[in-house]
């Protein structure tokens, strides 16, 4: 299992790395002192698990998670217990308080191997299936095919279907994992679109595309994702 450590204090980072060497089942592929350098490392190595500090200069560990294209397993390491509740939103495997004992770390790593990754648990849905959405007092049974696009709002997503919209309390990355890839496409960090709901594609000024959806909404396709859109839509 590939792991990286993100922690701004050098002493704490090297100390944690030293502790992790006791667990040969983990392959440490990198360490970062800031969310920005961590993002590069993560995109390069796609680690299975991130040991993540929360409070870092100018940007938090949560900010980093919002930017990822997939959902790695997270073990938070922090001096503060105040973020524990928020860590649930990110489906953290564990929440370790500094100073971390070797025994406590062993428990976290045991959990890591005991819980299979979420995506392996749930297969992706068929385009003909329906999903149940409870938004405040309204319950909706939404056919997947009727969803135009899905917007990421922090830890939640908002789905746009028919002439309605509703919130789902899951991050976009997780929702995306369950969608059929032949029908849904990740246009950019914020939007997943239904390919059937696109009515026009135009080239954008900056290398990507601009999609016009059947309700008139325009969504940009980032340069990175433009190529996979071309592949999806070619003969």
């Amino acid at each position: 299992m590939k792991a990286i450590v993100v922690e701004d204090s050098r002493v704490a980072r090297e100390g944690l790395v030293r502790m992790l060497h006791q667990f040969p089942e983990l392959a440490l592929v990198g360490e970062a002192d800031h969310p920005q350098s961590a993002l590069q490392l993560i995109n390069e190595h796609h680690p299975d698990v991130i040991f993540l500090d929360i409070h870092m200069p100018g940007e938090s560990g949560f900010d980093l998670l919002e930017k990822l294209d997939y959902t790695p397993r997270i073990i938070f390491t922090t001096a503060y217990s105040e973020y524990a509740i928020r860590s649930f939103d990110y489906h953290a495997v564990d929440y370790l308080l500094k100073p971390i004992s070797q025994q406590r770390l062993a428990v976290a790593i045991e959990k890591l191997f005991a819980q299979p990754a979420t995506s392996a648990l749930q297969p992706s849905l068929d385009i003909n299936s329906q999903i149940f959405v409870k938004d405040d007092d309204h319950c909706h049974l939404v056919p997947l095919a009727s969803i135009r696009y899905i917007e990421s709002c922090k830890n939640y997503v908002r789905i746009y279907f028919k002439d309605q919209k509703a919130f789902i309390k899951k991050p976009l990355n997780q929702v995306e994992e369950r969608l059929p890839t032949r029908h849904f496409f990740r246009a950019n960090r914020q939007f997943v679109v239904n390919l059937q709901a696109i009515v026009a594609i135009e080239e954008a000024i900056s290398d990507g595309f601009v999609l016009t959806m059947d309700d008139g909404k325009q969504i940009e396709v980032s340069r990175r994702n433009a190529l996979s859109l071309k592949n999806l839509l070619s003969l």
Partner: protein
Amino acid sequence: MTEMVVSNSTQTTLFICAWIFVYISVTSRRRIRESELTNLRLQNSLREAQLSHLANQLNPHFLFNALNNIRFMIHENPHNAESMVISLSDMLRYSLEGSKKEKVSLREELETIERYLALMRVQLEHRLQVQMDIPASLGNYLVPPMILQMLVENAIKHGLDNRREGGTLQLSARLIDGLLTLNVSNDIADKARNTTKTLGIGLSNIQQRLTLLYGDSGQIHNNEDAQQFSVSVQLPGETQ
């Protein structure tokens, strides 16, 4: 007839005397109560400052990070780990009991600041640069405890620690025309500062203490430009 006049004037004198007595006793009692009240207010605000400082100092983030660093420093450099334990205990002692005094020497206050900076240097390493410009001759001058310390903590917490590259903390003291001026300044983060509110409460608390201790001659001012945030405290130069 004259007898009556005399007795009348005696009566008037007596009446005036009684009235003066009542007046003086009432006003002096009021004055005593007022000075008692000022005293109480001073004690109260000092207590408040101690409490808020204590809360600040024993801030779990600082404390647990320090403990975490000490723990790993034991492997890395046992000698450093030892001095970190000493610094931390001295700091905690100063927080818990040393702050009961109304005034301490600038030297004592600077000793605590040095301990705090030593611990923060392990956490922040090259991200914390300190420029200290305080003439040794000012060491015996008296300052209210923990004001300078609080300003240094704020400068790191709300300033340097929000910058990835860190920055410089400047501390200076001057005695000009019998007035002692202490200045703390730091580089600030480029992003909008979201902590100005708590900072404001800290600064107004300090102003309140200065006013109670020194009247109009105790002042605190802050100043902010694109790169720096600075706070200066002015108080009458007193020695032990």
